[in-house]
């Protein structure tokens, strides 16, 4: 199991050091600094073995988190734990920065004591942790409160406490998708997939039993004839759920039922690869004119309903390292050559569906005797669209709370779809 956990700043100074196992000594702290943080070469692996000690690290801005062990631990678990640790810290004090960590080091030690016992991760749901690990010191609790805390931390529904009350029962569903594309210069889709998340923000009283439904092909097909209300169904390649969802029920009936944590949670993640609506098409044209000049022309076409508007559009056209000057002409938005990023960045605030726009640029190059050809990195794109590129639709989210006197109809529900670009690249 995890033998110790260290947090370093970018210089390699230790901010937090907690050792759980006897086989990890203080020298491990230095070994990681010397061999990884101060290493000259780029990090080639997130797992490093130094003198029979294994170090797992993740980096958040310029903060290094490292878990150390000498045993054959579950590596996936260690990384999941490190991410979780970051989530918990963010939930407590915001951004993970050197200053925030130093300001909260007592709290971090307290958290580490609670969520990692002898290197074994324990309940790390912030909802539960916040009931008894606070920055303001423990209020004197009554006996009932104490046992409520412990039963929540260890209980089957460790993510929600009882007795929550809201005057207005309300819930928000966000379907957030990132659409990923790799396209050849000739416009052939090399790979495309959507990875989506359903994020739920709920403000519901009591212990509400929820049931979530979407246009999952398997479910729709099962319901068969009765369905035919024109709802397009989608094939979901795979999905994973928050731990509140009853997985065995999903496996058996493909129904998604759960008692949600209070506040925000990521209910589900899914991935689709079929029938994806690609919101934009990028058509590149790069021509090398002699050894010192490049002509680039890029056309983007929006491919969705004209009534919808895409936002925050950004096209990034890479330029060679030996670029000396760039002249850009674009029909819409603003384009700029950013020498520090070796790219032309073209920004468009808004663009409606079924439109097209174009940019052309002349790139002047310094002659070099470098034999190596320019690698031509792909043109990448960022955008945001108000629909789900996978075609996913929320069909219902039913809420039942038998003990309290509100029904499904009394709950105010909001659904929103946002499609963003993931890695959306076209080779040129």
């Amino acid at each position, binding site marked *: 199991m995890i033998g110790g956990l260290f947090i370093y700043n970018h210089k390699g*100074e*230790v901010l*937090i050091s907690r*050792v759980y*196992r*006897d086989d990890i000594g203080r020298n491990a*702290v230095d070994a990681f600094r010397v061999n990884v943080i101060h290493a000259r070469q*780029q*990090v080639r*692996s997130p*797992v490093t*073995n130094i003198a*029979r000690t294994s170090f797992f*690290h993740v980096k958040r801005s310029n903060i290094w988190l490292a878990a150390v062990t000498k045993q*054959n631990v*579950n*590596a*996936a*678990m260690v*990384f*999941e734990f490190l991410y979780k640790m970051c989530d918990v810290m963010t939930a407590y004090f915001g951004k993970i920065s050197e*200053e925030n960590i*130093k*300001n*909260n080091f*007592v709290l971090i*030690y307290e958290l580490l*004591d609670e969520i990692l*016992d*002898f290197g*074994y991760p*324990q*309940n*790390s749901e912030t909802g539960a942790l916040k009931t*008894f690990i606070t920055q303001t*010191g423990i209020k004197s609790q009554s006996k009932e409160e*104490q046992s409520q*805390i*412990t039963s929540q931390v260890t*209980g*089957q529904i*460790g993510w929600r406490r009882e007795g929550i009350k809201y005057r207005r029962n309300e819930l928000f569903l966000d379907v957030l998708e990132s659409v990923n594309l*790799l396209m050849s210069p000739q416009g052939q889709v*090399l*790979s495309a997939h959507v*990875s989506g998340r359903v994020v739920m923000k709920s403000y519901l009283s009591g212990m509400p039993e929820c049931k979530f439904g979407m246009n999952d092909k398997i479910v729709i097909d099962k319901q068969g004839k009765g369905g035919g209300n024109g709802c397009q169904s989608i094939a979901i390649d*795979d*999905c*994973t759920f928050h*731990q509140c969802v*009853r*997985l*065995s029920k*999903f496996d058996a009936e493909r129904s998604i039922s759960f008692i949600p944590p209070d506040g925000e949670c990521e209910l*589900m*993640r899914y*991935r689709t690869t079929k029938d994806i609506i690609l919101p934009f098409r990028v058509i590149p044209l790069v021509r090398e004119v002699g050894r010192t000049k490049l002509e680039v022309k890029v056309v983007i076409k929006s491919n969705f309903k004209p009534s919808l508007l895409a936002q925050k559009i950004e096209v990034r056209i890479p330029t060679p390292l030996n670029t000396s000057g760039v002249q850009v002409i674009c029909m819409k938005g603003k384009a700029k050559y950013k020498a520090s990023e070796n790219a032309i960045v073209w920004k468009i605030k808004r663009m409606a569906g079924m439109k097209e726009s174009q940019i052309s640029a002349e790139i002047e190059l310094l002659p070099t005797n470098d*034999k190596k050809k320019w690698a031509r*990195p*792909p043109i990448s794109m960022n955008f945001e669209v108000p629909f789900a590129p996978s075609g996913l639709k929320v069909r219902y989210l039913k809420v039942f709370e038998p003990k309290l006197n509100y029904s499904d109809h009394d709950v105010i529900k909001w659904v929103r779809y946002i499609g963003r670009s993931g890695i959306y690249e076209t080779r040129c």
Partner: protein
Amino acid sequence: MTDSKYFTTTKKGEIFELKAELNSDKKEKKKEAVKKVIASMTVGKDVSALFPDVVNCMQTDNLELKKLVYLYLMNYAKSQPDMAIMAVNTFVKDCEDPNPLIRALAVRTMGCIRVDKITEYLCEPLRKCLKDEDPYVRKTAAVCVAKLHDINAQLVEDQGFLDTLKDLISDSNPMVVANAVAALSEIAESHPNSNLLDLNPQSINKLLTALNECTEWGQIFILDCLANYTPRDDRESQSICERVTPRLSHANSAVVLSAVKVLMKFMEMLPKDLDYYGTLLKKLAPPLVTLLSAEPELQYVALRNINLIVQKRPEILKHEMKVFFVKYNDPIYVKLEKLDIMIRLASQANIAQVLAELKEYATEVDVDFVRKAVRAIGRCAIKVEQSAERCVSTLLDLIQTKVNYVVQEAIVVIKDIFRKYPNKYESVIATLCENLDSLDEPEARAAMIWIVGEYAERIDNADELLESFLEGFHDESTQVQLQLLTAIVKLFLKKPTETQELVQQVLSLATQDSDNPDLRDRGYIYWRLLSTDPVAAKEVVLAEKPLISEETDLIEPTLLEELICHIGTLASVYHKPPSAFVEGSRGVMHKRLPARTGSGEGTECPDVGNAAGGSAPEAAPSIIPSQGDLLGDLLNLDLAPPTTTGPTPSTSGMQMGGMDLLGGGLESLVGTLGGDIGGSPAMGAGFGAAPAVMPASLNAPVGGGLGDLFDLGGGVGMPMGAYIPPKTVWLPAMKAKGLEISGTFARRAGVIQMELVLTNKAMSVMTDFAIQFNRNSFGLAPAGPLQVLTPLGPNQTIEVSLPLSTVGPVMKMDPLNNLQVAVKNNIDVFYFSCQYPISMLFVEDGKMERQVFLATWKDIPNDNESQFQIQDCHLNSEAASNKLQGSNIFTIAKRTVEGQDMLYMSIKLSNGIWVLAELKVQAGNPNYTVIELPASEIAAQINASEFKQQTDLNINCSEETVN
């Protein structure tokens, strides 16, 4: 909230100031001071001097302060054990606190304080907490048992905590169950043979129920534990799989990977024709692909595991090639792993796409990645014949880029393509030759030279090209030198007229001017070949080359099986068994996949089920239960020293020294021996060469089949030769995929022979036989390779005699004469163990000088003596003596007292140990009495009964021949 200020105080005299503050009356000031102490501790300053002052702050109602003090205690208690005792009372009191959070905190912290005296006080509170009414306290106490076990394992056992922990597996609270499972698994790991985690269908059922209810981490603990279980049959296996599959939809990747591990392992047991088997295969792909959308670090772990899964079950992901395409922004470690998997998944169906991708990658920035991509193109050509032409043209395009490392890498792979498809792509040679000058890496130079030599007859200026390399011959690396030598000899054989001078030049460079023995030897061989028989030289040097394999970098099958059992863990990330990177006994135990049981419970062969259970089979030619050490030796891995198997209970009074002979007593022993035996040079040498540890081992079933021997009747043994036991089946065909091995041991003309009969009972031809022994008591090792020259066809049998040496590595076995053997062929590696007759180790020069014998006999302490009777032996002393001599048991003297013949005999073992014996034979009485005296303390380690049986065996067989 600006605690950061505590990090900044660095001035002198700080400790004194802190001391004063810690002893302040004001609570706030105290707390501030403790925070400063913790901050100093974090950055590595030694604040242990403040121990008493900090501990004084422990008695407080303020939980935050208390936690800080505890944190301090955990860090420094070990360095101040006496003062740490001061804290005990508070801990014990806190364990009784009405607040469960405080009870748990106390028991959690106490377990982290590694001071013996504190540990004693921990037992009672821990016992109470394990039975606490609050689940939070119980789950903390469960982990605490593991902590305590780490400090003092004996104490945990004595106090019965293990039983309480086992009871917690049935706890009503899932989190308590999960922590109990985690603690038990850890404890069980350090006791590989204990049956701590007594997994049976009932307990498995409890775990599976808890699995649905506990936290994500708890699910991981339970799944990892489940993976150690071996179901009784395929039905149980299927029902567990069915209950584990829902976990594949968990958001936590570690839960998913651990579930994959359980499924991959239990799938082994399912019959392939079962519908469910196919369903399961289909269910595995999507979650594995989903893992690739996790954060990069997890992707890396997932990819390393997918690499294993693809090797074990390629069918799972064969349609998912696209998801392994490299993204421009992937971290380099993800890119390299994806590329690896792409090569493995490449097939005729997807080759076009793969090639297009690889070509793209070959223009990237990272040198390692580009090289690997170029190499991958070559692999594709070799793997998918239809694509070869396209691959070659892609490689040529890449060579045109003139990027130095791309060109070199391309040439290396083109060489392999030439090997696979001879005489097909020579047209590209001209292009290759253009780049001769830019090659500066040995591998590329060697590849180029090979190409020139191989196609010398088609390259007009081959001699010039090779000559150009010859100029700097001595500066080249060995690889290039060897290749150059061979290439020029090839050239000479193809164009003898023009290149005589060149070949002489290279031969003299290689043989006369080189320090490298490999190069010299190869040079001499060519020289002699060329000068004696050029036709033979042609046949040798220009012979047709064997095919090269399509797959590369495949993990050896046994290791792969083990790694599959470690999916998700570090072992699967490193692709090494845990013993290669974990110290001590933990995790050294090797895991294996269960065997398929066929359909239904009523399998025809109970042994298979038995082997699947992982328990040591009782059958005589046993599959070695823990083949770990053997495997390690075979793979040449960096293994920790093997743990000796559990101590054998001693029943005779003979066990004297124990096992530490090698360390302390050896020198003195050699001294005394020298004195005792009067400087017998053979003796001294024997000792120097093989100082064997020979711990006592009992219950050796060596002569177990004595009765059988009597029934065998005459005519088997040879009158004057050593006794050779009849051949027995060591490895039955059903355990070795159709290979049956039977055999025996013999000593012929002073050489120990292992006589093997290999029978192929499978349908396919077997080739590439090799043999290896595990370390054993007498250092037996094969003296040469296993000589199976022709492939062994179906239903063919071959007899092989393998000479053995006794200079191999030594390790005590139980029984002493046990030998663990691994036999490899083109299908797999198989393990079995057999027992050799000790008499095989009796050496020819075992005849001791009379005087020496006498002196030695007197000097041997009486304790070493053992006495036993041989029943029903109808030989006279003369015949017995002759017969025994055949087995190198020499009669030194004989005297007759009151009608009894007394024979004095000596035996010398291959490792230099002497054994002296007295044999009493009474005429007309069929019973012999043997008194046996091992000649020194070291020999006393040889168990008496062992020798009794051996002597029995020899005498009995002599009798058998005479009758």
